[in-house]
């Protein structure tokens, strides 16, 4: 009897130890610097539970239920409107976000949230092709990824929007098309490519690129930059047919009971030195203009992270899709993965 009491008591005692306020933050992997969270914890006397995900879908699956337990998440820009319509987001109080002025000009009134009423741009990137320089000739467009020469040393993103987008771009169709006929054709392209695709991987493929297991991958520019820094024989290219631009934004979930603390965290992330530290260490493209000025010249000049105007002209910001279109795309994605 005594032994049982002890066994029950010990864990209860352990739970009572930490009395600091909590904040639960759910972010993309490799999207923060080592010191960012500990510094915030120290300065504000709180405890942050920080967990990571690899895709919007992974995050949405948890958050859609409305009682996931997360306070701050980082959806990509075109997920924000649907999340708002489903009542998942808390309105932002600009009085608490004094550092908003640090945002770069182009992110002060973004297409997806002109008033910044519910989101704060965090980092941005684009999807392109990262490849090993050994490959001759080097790939320069999406169509180059449809070739038997890859022999399974190629990966594509485990992301419906990006995969279908690449297929649509290859066919010369709009990246965020909702036309069922277009999507059918894109599906056929994806299935045709499958035999030379090793796997559908997101950021997880970075290690395999660095080690040379994988020769080419459809990848986001920031992950690509991380890989290139680790292995000099890699390079990144923005495909000629066009490519998507993405911005990941910090939002506060409506279910959160800690909105005040969450605002503090968002404001903290907007500090130039904090954003610069993250951009430097995680090798991401920051939406914070003041932070960008603090970065070393070499990083600011990186074509991969901050492409020039000519390249940017080929990119598009995918829009939020209507519900029915999302269902159709999800179904096609399942069919591609199962084929």
């Amino acid at each position, binding site marked *: 009897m005594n032994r*049982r009491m002890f*066994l029950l008591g010990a*864990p209860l005692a*352990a739970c009572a130890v930490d009395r600091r306020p909590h904040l*639960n933050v*759910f972010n993309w*992997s490799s999207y923060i610097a080592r010191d960012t969270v500990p510094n915030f914890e120290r300065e504000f006397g709180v405890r942050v*539970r920080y*967990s*990571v995900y*690899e895709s919007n879908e992974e995050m949405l699956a948890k958050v859609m*239920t409305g*009682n*996931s*337990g*997360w306070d701050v998440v980082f959806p990509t820009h075109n997920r924000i409107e649907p999340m708002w319509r489903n009542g998942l987001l808390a309105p932002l109080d600009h009085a608490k976000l004094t550092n908003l002025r640090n945002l770069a000009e182009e992110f002060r009134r973004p297409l997806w949230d002109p008033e910044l009423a519910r989101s704060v741009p965090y980092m941005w990137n684009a999807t392109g092709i990262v490849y090993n320089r050994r490959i001759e000739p080097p790939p320069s467009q999406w169509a180059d990824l449809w070739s038997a020469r890859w022999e399974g040393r190629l990966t594509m993103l485990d992301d419906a929007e990006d995969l279908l987008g690449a297929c649509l771009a290859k066919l010369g169709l709009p990246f965020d098309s909702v036309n069922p006929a277009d999507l059918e054709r894109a599906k056929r392209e994806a299935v045709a490519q499958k035999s030379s695709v090793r796997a559908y991987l997101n*950021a*997880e493929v970075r*290690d*395999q690129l660095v080690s040379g297991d994988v020769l080419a991958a459809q990848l986001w520019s920031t992950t690509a930059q991380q890989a290139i820094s680790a292995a000099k024989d890699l390079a990144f290219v923005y495909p000629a047919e066009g490519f998507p631009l993405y911005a990941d934004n910090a939002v506060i979930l409506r279910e959160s009971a800690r909105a005040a603390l969450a605002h503090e965290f968002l404001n903290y992330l907007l500090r130039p030195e904090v954003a610069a530290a993250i951009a430097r260490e995680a090798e991401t493209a920051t939406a914070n203009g003041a932070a960008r000025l603090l970065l070393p010249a070499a990083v600011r000049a990186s074509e991969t992270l901050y492409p020039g105007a000519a390249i940017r002209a080929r990119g598009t910001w995918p829009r939020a899709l209507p519900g029915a279109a999302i269902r159709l795309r999800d179904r096609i994605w399942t069919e591609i993965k199962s084929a």
Partner: protein
Amino acid sequence: MKRVLGWYAALLYAFLHLPLLILIAFSFNSSRFSVWEGFSLNWYRAMWTNTQMAEAAWNSVIIAASSSLLATAIGTAAAYGMWKRKAPLLQVSLYLTLVTPEIVTGIALLALFQWIFRWMPFRLGLGTVILAHVAFSIAYVAIVLTARLRTMDPALEEAALDLGASEWTAFRRVTLPLLAPAMGAAALLALVVSFDDYVITSMVAGVDSETLPMVIYAMARRGVNPVLNAVSSVMVVFFGSLILLSEKVRAR
């Protein structure tokens, strides 16, 4: 024929055990590649200082201990009840629990919890994981106890009843002590099954209830990481010794 069988058995044992032994061996490799470069405890140090892993391990311990205790109590009671007289519905239900694929159990429990949370102010967390683990562990416990009860002579309890004891007293003073070793074995089985579970746990875990297998899975998906070798080694050695020890105790 016996010689051939002998060689074959040796090969198969090697197949079964070598991957784990190699995994453990390379946890001591100073380099992160599959080429041996020197002995080092780097990865163990890295594992030890990883707060996320430490928290997850602690969660796993709490969940395994709680669910194993509960499952042993409930499962023993059920096995005893079914031994006294058949309970066909419960029997079938427990069988079905065993053969239902883990992923289906996981999503069914997720659906249950999300439905309940529409009306009750709870969310996924340690509690839901413990409940889920109890749910699938009871069948294991029941099997172990049923096997033990089969070798139990009902005459012992009958004698106690004849001497004027109540049913409950007969159980508590006669049968229970005899079942104790089997209960220990069942509890250990439930503990290990709970600690190791990934599929069901991943579906019903919440923000603050990440378990060690969940952390391992997330890292394994990202590629090979020697810290995983270290964690795996610790788990294999720990649970392996626990099992062997319990077998020694039981054999006595």
